[in-house]
Each structure stands twice: as C-alpha cells, then as structure tokens.
C-alpha cells in the first residue's frame, strides 16, 4: 500500500489517499478534525486494512487466501483466527442470497473447518475470492474506527464502487452521490448517503468479464450495473454483486433476508 495525506486547515478537513490496496485505491475524507487526530485515525484504519489484506487479498502472493487457494485438495491448512472468522462470515451470505454470492465460486458447501484454525481443502480444490466481501468489510471497519474516534462527518471511497457517507457534507444533509452508466455516462440515479453506504457492481468498457455467476461458472457479460444503498457497506457489497446475477423474482425473495437496505436498482 502506498499512502499520502493532506490537511485543509480552513475547512478542518483531513484527506487520506492510498493506492495498491486490495488491488485498487482508497480515499477517506474526514471533516471537523485536527491534523494529529486525522493522522491517528488513518493509522488505525491503515492497520486494519493491512490486516485484512494479509489475510484475504487474492492479489498478494503471501496472503492466507493465496496459500489456501494453492493448497492441495484434501490437505489441511492452518489458518489464522481472523481468516476463519472472515471466511465463515463470507460463506454465511451464500444461504440468504440463494447461492448468488459465493466467495468460493460454488464450493461453499464443501468447505469444512476441523477446528477454528484448521481448514480442510475440498477434493475439488478451493478458489476463494473474498474481493467484494473484503472491501465491504474494510469500509465497515473503517467506519467503526472513525465513529469510535468521535468523527461525525466523513466520506470513504473504496475503488469508486464502495462508498460510505458518515454524517453530512458541510453544505447540506448527507453526502449526495450519483451513479452513472459507464458506457453512456448518463446519470442513472442520485443517492444521499447519511450513515449509509453505496455499492455498485457491473461491467465497464474498461473492465468487462470479471463477474462470474457462481451457480453457472459463467461470466456475466454486457452492460449491466447494480447499485445498493444500505446501512452497512458489507450488505451493500454482497447485494450489489447478487443483484447482477439474480433475476427479478429471486431478488424479491432475497431482499427480505437483509435489514437496513435503503435503495436498490439494476440497470441493463
């Protein structure tokens, strides 16, 4: 991770920016804070990001996820308690999303823990991709850091697709953000984030073919975009991914399984 910080005295505004974090970039803006406090909170957020990355990033050759993905079928891999906790939580979203959100791309039911720190690799091998889950978890954890530090107004943007607004922009209520069609650049919707998180998923002209339907193993192609606003970033992440692969009927079945979802749409 490469990081830098700025401070705007006249607005008491702290801005931290990081690249090469979970394969993307991160910006965090905190209002009504002095520089030293901003640095301290950013340091705490950064430590949490590094912990999550060390465990869950598929982009790091030495992460635990990479080690598990490389493990031989039927071997037993010793993992950290954090890894066990994250994987268990991530797998837990499979059932309420009817299999549409599956960090193991279809092998969830075969994952078995012999103990909290011992994972048995299924006979078919294991490919874990915590991608969206990890970003959502990170944003929620950063929000917890900021709230415990007394922050009332802040904005977090993780890779442009996972965004959280805490409190309000100084000139209004909440943090207004718009979602645009990456192909036509037309504004599709505008949301106000006030202690809420927006997650978008979909293909872009630059990045097409990264979303795999776990049920079929096929790539979701074409111009499709989903957006979810929810209190928790993790729920928004899980559902925005789910909304790309689930049809309308399935989405109506899945929605009641989650609380504090404020807005949702799919654009085809």
């Amino acid at each position, binding site marked *: 991770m490469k990081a830098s910080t700025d401070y705007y005295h006249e607005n008491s505004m702290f801005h931290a920016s990081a690249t090469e974090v979970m394969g993307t970039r991160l910006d965090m803006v905190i209002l009504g804070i002095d520089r030293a406090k901003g640095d301290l909170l950013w340091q705490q957020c950064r430590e949490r990001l590094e912990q999550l990355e060390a465990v869950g990033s598929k982009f790091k050759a030495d992460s635990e996820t990479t080690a598990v993905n490389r493990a031989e079928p039927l071997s037993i891999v010793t993992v950290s308690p954090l890894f066990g906790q994250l994987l268990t939580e991530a797998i837990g979203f499979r059932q309420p999303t009817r299999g549409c959100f599956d960090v193991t791309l279809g092998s969830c039911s075969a994952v078995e823990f012999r103990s909290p720190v011992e994972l048995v690799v299924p006979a078919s091998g294991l490919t874990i991709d915590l991608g969206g889950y990890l970003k959502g978890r990170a944003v929620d954890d950063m929000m917890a850091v900021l709230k415990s530090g007394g922050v009332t107004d802040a904005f977090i943007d993780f890779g442009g697709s996972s965004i959280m607004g805490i409190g309000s922009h100084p*000139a209004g209520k909440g943090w*207004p953000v718009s979602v645009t069609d*990456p192909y036509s650049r037309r504004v599709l919707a505008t949301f106000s984030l006030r202690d809420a998180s927006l997650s*978008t998923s979909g293909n872009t002209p630059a990045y*097409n*073919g990264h979303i795999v339907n776990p049920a079929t193993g*096929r790539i979701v192609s074409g111009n499709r*975009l989903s957006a979810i606003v929810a209190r928790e970033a993790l729920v928004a992440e899980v559902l925005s991914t789910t909304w790309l692969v689930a049809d309308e009927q399935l989405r109506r079945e899945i929605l009641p399984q989650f609380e504090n979802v404020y807005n949702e749409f799919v654009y085809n």
Partner: protein
Amino acid sequence: MTDPSRRSFMRSLGVLAGSAAVLSTAPWLASCSADKQAAVTGERARIALIGTGSRGQYHLHNLKLIPHSEVVALCDIHQPHLDEASQLFPEAKTYTDYHALLDDPDIDGVIIATPLGTHARITLDALDAGKHVFCEKAMALTLDECKEVYERYKQCDNVLYYCMQRMYDEKYIRGVQMINDGLIGDVVGMRCHWFRNADWRRDCPDPSLERLINWRLYRETSGGLMTELASHQLEVCSWVTGKMPSKIMGMGDIIHWKHDAREVYDTVNVVYKYSDGRTISYESLISNKYNGMEDQILGSRGTMNLATGLYYLEEDNSRSGIKQLLSSVRESVFSAIPAAGPSWRPETADAYIPHSILDGVTHVNNGQSTIGADHDGSEDILASFCQACITGERAVNVVEEAYSATALCLLGNKAIEEGTTIDFPDEYKIPYMKF
C-alpha cells in the same frame, strides 16, 4: 505434484474461454474451455522435444507442470544439452537424429526448439510423419519456407502450433478485448520496441561449435532481432488491427557489437504502413536497455501498453471525483458527487495515470531474459498444444498469425537490406490476411 499457481491459472484461462466476448477477441482459446480441459483429465499426450538447448529446457520445465503431458523422447545433435535434458526426464528415449525420433509411432506430438534455419525442414518432416507439431517462433527463415509449411498445414489434419505466447497471455487477451470494446478509441498507430544491453552470445566451449551455439548471430540460421524479438510484437499489431501492413521500410546495422563475427544487426528501425495510412513503428537494439520492452497501441482516446499490462487515457476522469468532493467542501457547494465509473468531471491531467489491464498484481516480462519469462503465456500455449495432441483439435488462427508475423519480420529485414520501401509481395499473401 502440479504447481498450484499453474493449476489456478489454467482454470482462469478456462473461464476466459467461456466468454463469447473473449472468444471473439482470441478465437484460438476455444480449445481451452473448462469443459475441454476437463475432458482430457487422466489422459497424457506423449511428447518429444527436438532441440534441448536453453529454450528447449525451458519448455521441459513447463512440461513438468502440465499433468496431461508425458515427455517420452528427447533429441539433440549437441550431446551436453541432450544430457542436461535427460537429467530432467531420465525415462525419455534419447536421439541424435530427429528422423529416427519421428519414426517412433509412440509419439503424439513434437516440440521443435531448434535454430530458426531448421524450423521449416523439421516441421515439414514431422507433419509428414503424422506428428502434431509445436514449433518455436518464428515460423521459418525464408518466406518460401513459410509458404511451404503453411500450404502443407492446410493440406493435412495435424495440429500445428507456434509459440506466439502473447496470444495466450491473459493481460494481452484482456487488453486487446478492451481495445476492441473501444476503450482507447480508434487505433491510430502502434509503437513497439525491445531494448536490451547484452551481446546475445552464449558461452561456447569450442570454436567449432560457434555457429551451432550462437546460431542467433548468423544469417544462415537466424533473422536476428526481427525474427527473434519483433515477431512477437508484430503479431500483436496484426491481432489488434486485424489487418496487414502493405508497405515496409527500415534501417539497421551493427553499431556496437562489432568485434565478433556476427552477421545480424544489433540495431533495427522498421516502419510498417497500412493501406489506411496507419503505421507500426518498430525499434530494437541490444546495447542500451533504458526503454525496455513495450507494445504500445495508440488510440484516439488512450494508449494500451500491453507488455506492461497498463493503459492510459487521454482524458482521465478516474481521479477527479475525489478532487471534486474536496473542492465542494472547500467552496461550500452542495452537489452530487459522481461515483462508480467514468462520470467524474474531467480535469486537465498533468500526467497520465496508469490503469492496470488486470486488477491487482500481474506478471510483467521486462524482456531482458534471452530464454523466456515466467507466466508470459508460454506455459499456457504449451498446455493447449498437449491437450490438442490428445483431442486433435486445432487452435484457430495460430498458424495464420504466426505466418503473418513471420512474413512481416522477414520483409522488415528485406527492406533494411534493400534500403527501399517495399510492397508486401502478392505471392506471399494468404487468404487470412486483410490489407
């Protein structure tokens, strides 16, 4: 044990091959689909290697990681190389005459990693012997040889692959797909270069072996920088444009490594011009490595640098959103902050921002190895060939792409030698080519 990193990459190639959009960009991946990979589970192609030098041994190391292959025979006229290879596969039979190897009915496919001057002869003999063939690039030393091999291939049913590994490199496949999707706008030109600072010589234990060991330096066996390096990069240009240049001009010389008896240029500059006016600017030299290796596709809205796995946009909106937010706070303006995608307000960029073709870490070949790089597609094209030895399924367009690229290399050398602008000769055009 199969190398797990390999196994997972083959899996991702299978996923790639499941996408119709990817297949329209790289139709040769049709034979790599997950279903087809699964269909050969438990079967093994019986593979022979002809030419056990450094590149041949690189392939042997990769073959150890390919579960559906079995190395059954090795051949070389240089005993020390044959002995080294034999240590890697002690069970494989050894030959010093490739004709004898081709007579062995228990061989499905042969890999040819011999000097360029021998590619055509051995390929033709192997096809005639009923073997499937995987040959190193370039296709052949002369255009006539290329044509002969191409025509023989069209007449037979055998599988023939050329090691144009960029065609199987995920970042190239994705990058070309992005170009086809319009990310960088209209392709207006191409700039490819490959720079090293090394004499390109191999240790030669006995002067009598000089032309055998250092075959790359002599014209009877090598086309020099054009066939050994440019062939990969010119193939990418044909792949991206779907067209062939119609005019070629170039200059080249031996400017630095003058003090041995080499015959091939150590610096070349070649310009290829398409009928619509676009050009490929190609440059290679081996006495300065500052510029490294790059394959730049220049578009009206951006630049795709396929070799480094990065692209750059002329009008880059990716960073201005957060600046817009900071400004809105400072100016007390309450307006929606565009999120998720390229809606961010344009800014005047003072520097181009690199964007990764593949999210996260990727394997980038800096072009400095004279043997081969890891994860550059070589393993995957070889794995695909081994699978084809079992199924008999040809890889769509691989031979045609190799023919086209080799023709451009050889014509580049011809243009340098003649010192004039030459037209692509009609007699070497094949139906695949569009001008």
